[in-house]
């Protein structure tokens, strides 16, 4: 019994300690971000590896999610005779929720895990230590460019996801099922508000971007320098950031859309 209490206390202290270390790394990353302005090509490279290379999975997933939305939305809407609202249904669900959330989940498993594994392995093979010995700060040279590169990529990928999803919805709804093209687009245009919907979606994906890359960088930097340690850290990145995305999404939605 006493042992259990002791273990619980130990776990809580460990958790708080890790949170502190993570926040310290986050603060140091922001503090050392000047290098990203001085040498933008470092960030560009990370936008390529985290963003551009994630495009295929984002585009394909977005298309399929949009197609499913088109099918299911039509099934339900036609019961009430309002299949002309299909366009606004597809666009609103994507721009407000599915775009930012699903893109972030895919990003966490595609780019977040890669960031953790790369930094963890750099630590395990002493590349980080070598960099420090060469008087180059790894937080400035390795961590900060990855943070900003991933952070810039995230909203762009979410936008891409939503755009492809709308294409998918159009494909199934208009081309395949035969919903009127004019009402599909005009209803969408009328229903989607730039500030309320699109901007909030962008803010969401920005917040998810900070959460995913922050978690991925911390897990990589904190990983024990062994094969097992890196593999565990990679798993933790995907699990923790997925949970963080879903929890943050609820909080953000509650603030953004209450009563709207």
């Amino acid at each position, binding site marked *: 019994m006493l042992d259990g209490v002791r273990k619980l206390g130990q776990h809580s202290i460990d958790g708080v300690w890790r949170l502190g270390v993570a926040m310290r790394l986050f603060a140091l990353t922001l503090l050392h971000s000047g290098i990203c302005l001085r040498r933008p090509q470092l960030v560009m490279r990370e936008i390529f590896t985290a963003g551009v290379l994630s495009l295929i999975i984002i585009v394909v997933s977005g298309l399929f999610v949009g197609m499913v939305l088109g099918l299911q939305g039509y099934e339900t809407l036609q019961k009430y005779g309002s299949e002309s609202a299909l366009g606004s249904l597809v666009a609103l669900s994507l721009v407000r929720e599915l775009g930012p959330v699903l893109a972030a989940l895919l990003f966490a498993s595609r780019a977040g895990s890669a960031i953790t594994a790369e930094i963890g*392995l750099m630590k395990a093979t002493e*590349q980080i*230590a070598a*960099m420090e010995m*060469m008087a180059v*700060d790894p937080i400035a040279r390795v961590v900060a460019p990855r943070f900003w590169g991933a952070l810039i990529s995230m909203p762009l990928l979410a936008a891409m996801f939503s755009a492809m999803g709308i294409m998918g919805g159009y494909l199934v709804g208009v081309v395949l099922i035969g919903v009127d093209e004019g009402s599909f687009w005009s209803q969408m245009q009328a229903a989607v508000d730039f500030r309320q919907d699109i901007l909030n979606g962008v803010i969401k994906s920005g917040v998810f971007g900070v959460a995913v890359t922050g978690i991925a960088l911390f897990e990589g930097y904190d990983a024990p320098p062994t094969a097992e340690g890196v593999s565990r850290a990679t798993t933790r990145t995907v699990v923790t950031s997925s949970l963080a995305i879903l929890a943050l999404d609820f909080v953000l939605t509650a603030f953004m859309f209450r009563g709207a």
Partner: protein
Amino acid sequence: MRDNLVEIRGLHFAYGNRPILKGIDLTARRGQVIAIMGSSGCGKTTLLRLIGGSVRPTQGSVEVDGQSLTGLDQDGLYRLRRRMGMLFQFGALFTDMSVFDNVAFQLREHTNLPEPMIRDLVLMKLNAVGLRGAHGLMPAELSGGMARRVALARAIALDPMLIMYDEPFAGLDPISLGVTGNLIRRLTDTLGLTSIVVTHDVQESLKMVDYVYFISDGVVEARGTAAEIKSSGLPFVHQFVHGEEDGPVPFHYPAEPYGVDLGLNHA
């Protein structure tokens, strides 16, 4: 200019409650190759990390080029490290960069030299380790010995005053072993460096070092020139140099009597 580049006095170091080094005195004279020897896990690599300033001593002082490391902040430490090179055990090359970019790394990070000049310098450094022709390869395409030579070229990129080698001979074939040993000696002499080599390869290192420190159980057990070490009568040094299985360093990890563990007789 002081005669000694590295001076260590009364150095103690512990990981948590586990003491690793218990009072080390060590000096490295300019232009010499110093070897630090001892069995695996005796704190040799930790000693290098202390000289490089990656960890701080719990007691005692480390001075490099007359500058004490203990009171140095990160900027001061980084300024000093630009004049130090370190060769990690397996090279620690940046795997996402080519051989050329690895050697150019410090030149690009710390200087504003134009790219054509960086190119010339990198090729000169690679030529010094015999790998000018390999500048376009990626680290994954190199053998262990070649990777270490590239790492050596990277370590001398900014013409440091001191190079530290962490187990430069581990896992090399006999040819690479000789090549690496000769390189360390030649670079030290021609570039006017000081080298500190952490190793347990007795035969290879005794061929080329000027002075040897033997570390055992956190203290300097023996010291001397290569010839003095070879003829040393100290039991530990004798066991180490001749690679004997049993001696002051026992073969068996401390354990219960064998019979008791097997349940044959009772303690």
